């Protein structure tokens, strides 16, 4: 070994330096998150700064801002983590809840239940109906894509049939909206634009439980997602129940996306681009990526929402507009510089 000693030394110090760098990066990330969350508590249509906690209106404003922060964290974390899983399972940078028709299916289910009823039953039933219709949509997409293949659809046919089913879903939503009553139409459109207006506390608690469960499940699955990155066959050779991991992963990711949609409507961009940026900054190891992307996605949405309610106050800009307009250029710059660390172009 004598001859190689110095070589090993160099490599050890090299990898130690790398580890330090990545630890520093994570530390900075957490610092930025705390700072941004605190900052977003200061922004709102009633003015910038800490509201007067002594007055009743001041404490109401504060608690409203805080519950919007919670809504944003939940929705953003769920969308972003679900994007990580879809991209890892399908080994494709295009995969995300919208492309696979999951969000469209959840949206259709949610629209139906918004138009059908009102009250607590709807608000509690919304996540459940959204999840069921999202799973059904995914099964249809999977079924269509499997036609003609020997049981395992290719990624390309999955994405293609996902896009088709997704646009069918949005056509049906538009049809339902156009034939609905004025009130129903208003409710659905407002919800579709995407908003972090707090829902009932019962729905919030149910959604929080579903999202935490989904995130936990995905995190436990994450080492296996790494193995699936080398393809279904290789994962099989390595003793993984590859098909089971695929199905369970898809179910968890669908649960997260559907809950997010039922909570805050159709907010795009978070599920696609946040996972990419997080992967570019922290590498593709899903054990780290899942929690980091959840935190990053949540914070990103909270900050966008703070901007959305402040910039043109008292008018509130739909948060989906801000995610794309503000986030797009910023993330494009990061991706331009660091795409190689995430995907092979």
């Amino acid at each position, binding site marked *: 070994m004598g001859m190689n000693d110095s*070589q*090993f030394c160099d*490599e050890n110090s*090299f*990898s130690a330096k*790398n580890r330090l760098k990545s630890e520093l990066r994570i530390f900075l990330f957490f610092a930025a998150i705390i700072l941004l969350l605190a900052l977003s508590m200061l922004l709102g249509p009633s003015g910038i700064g800490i509201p007067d906690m002594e007055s009743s209106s001041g404490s109401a404003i504060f608690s409203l801002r805080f519950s919007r922060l919670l809504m944003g964290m939940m929705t953003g974390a769920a969308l972003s983590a679900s994007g990580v899983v879809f991209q*890892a399972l399908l*080994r*494709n*940078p295009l995969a995300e809840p919208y492309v696979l028709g999951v969000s469209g299916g959840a949206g259709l289910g949610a629209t139906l239940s918004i138009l059908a009823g009102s009250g607590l039953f709807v608000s509690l039933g919304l996540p459940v109906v959204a999840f069921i219709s999202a799973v059904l949509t995914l099964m249809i997409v999977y079924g269509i894509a499997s036609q003609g293949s*020997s*049981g395992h659809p290719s990624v390309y046919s999955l994405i293609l049939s996902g896009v088709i089913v997704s646009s069918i879903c949005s056509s049906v939503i538009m049809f339902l909206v156009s034939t609905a009553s004025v009130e129903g139409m208003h409710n659905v459109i407002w919800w579709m634009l995407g908003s972090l207006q707090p829902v009932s506390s019962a729905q919030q608690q149910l959604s929080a439980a579903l999202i935490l469960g989904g995130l936990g499940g995905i995190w*436990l699955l*994450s*080492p*296996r997602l*790494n*193995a699936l*990155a*080398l*393809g279904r*066959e*290789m*994962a*099989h*050779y*390595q*003793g*993984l*129940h590859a098909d089971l991991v695929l199905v369970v992963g898809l179910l968890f990711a669908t649960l997260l996306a559907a809950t997010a949609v039922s909570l805050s409507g159709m907010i795009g961009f978070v599920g696609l681009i946040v996972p990419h940026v997080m*992967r570019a900054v922290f*590498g*593709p*190891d899903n*054990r780290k990526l899942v929690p980091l992307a959840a935190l990053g996605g949540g914070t990103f949405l909270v900050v966008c929402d703070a901007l959305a309610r402040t910039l043109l106050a008292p008018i509130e800009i739909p948060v989906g507009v801000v995610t794309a307009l503000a986030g797009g250029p910023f993330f494009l710059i990061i991706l331009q510089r660091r795409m*190689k*660390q*995430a*995907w*092979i172009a």
Partner: protein
Amino acid sequence: MEKNALSFRDVSAGYKHRKVLDHVSFTVREGEFVSLIGPNGCGKSTLLKTAAALLKPLSGVVELFDQDVHLLKPARRASLLGVVPQKIESPMAFTVSQIVMNGRISSIGRWGTLSPRDHDLVERSMIYTDVLGLRERYYTELSGGEQQRVALAMVLAQDPDMIMLDESISHLDINHRQEVLQILMNLNREKRMTILLVSHDLTLSASISDRFLLMNSGRLIKAGTPVEVLEPQLLSTVYNCDLRVQQDPYTGYMQVSGAIDSLHRQKKLNRNVHVIAGGGSGIELYRRLLIEGYELTTGVLNRLDSDAEAARALNIAVALEQPFSPVGAEAIAQALKMIDSADTVILTPVPFGSGNLVNLDLARAALKKGKTVLLANDIADRDYTDGKAAVQLVSSLLNDGALGWQSMPELMLQLQQHSYNRYQ
């Protein structure tokens, strides 16, 4: 007592609309080093997939260390059998050590933790395959040969009792090929690891293997020692080309080489061959003759016939007749002119009916002009004329000095001999 490592018992397997393996039976004993050989597309990769339970056999049983491979738990199967595929692609930028870590995925704890033994196995397999120095590099940035060593490291980290490699050493440079083979031989000798190597380098395989399995079109043609399997006649038929096998006088190893002689090296042979074909029976012959450097003409063919289409695509002069019409005088005159300038006329195994029977008259004319005429054998199977006219014509041609041919390698040999005799 030696156990069976891998047994195929009358296994047929394949995909939804295509059966690939056709009643294959063999046994690899524990501790054996076996090479699986055969031409492209003969079913070697399908055999590996079936052995690793990725494909379920349509019929028959696959046993891994005497247990039905489809009844084994995935983690247990991975501890018995590792597979190094032809190529592993990672669309995401994983580092080498992250990739190799995947080899331990089946023993990972519920909380995603690995034991010290897992880490040792990963480290050891990276040292073995000389990829430790690459561990912080991105897998996708590595050269093909480096990627293959990383893939081998990942599979060794599984610590399996048997390894199957699917042409995985073909991309390695000579230094690392020797090294990887040395690693495999050491694992085979010292740990009694069973190895099944899919290989296209017959000479190399002969020097390291205990036994060969030879496949062709989904069937196991022969199993035995290198000396038993590497038979020139057998290989030439299976690989459809002329092969030579010699025993190295010093090492005793078998050496297989393609028979390329000086005639083949000349670009232009200035030898003209006229081919009488039809119905697609000529395409393979056109290809071979063009590769060997012959000047080609062909006909009479009907327009739209698949041979006519192929000849046009390959820029071969064709004597043509209208589609679905009997051959007329004009086309015959054209073909006769081609035969005049040819040295040899070859008849492919084309089916004969009343419409193209006249092509045999062309062969007769060629024989009269002193050309060498080579006729495909087994005319009786392809004669659809009334009263077996084609059979009679062919047998009279053979009587008058035409020669028969059976297989493509044999035909090529005959052609060469004729060129040789004529020009010496």
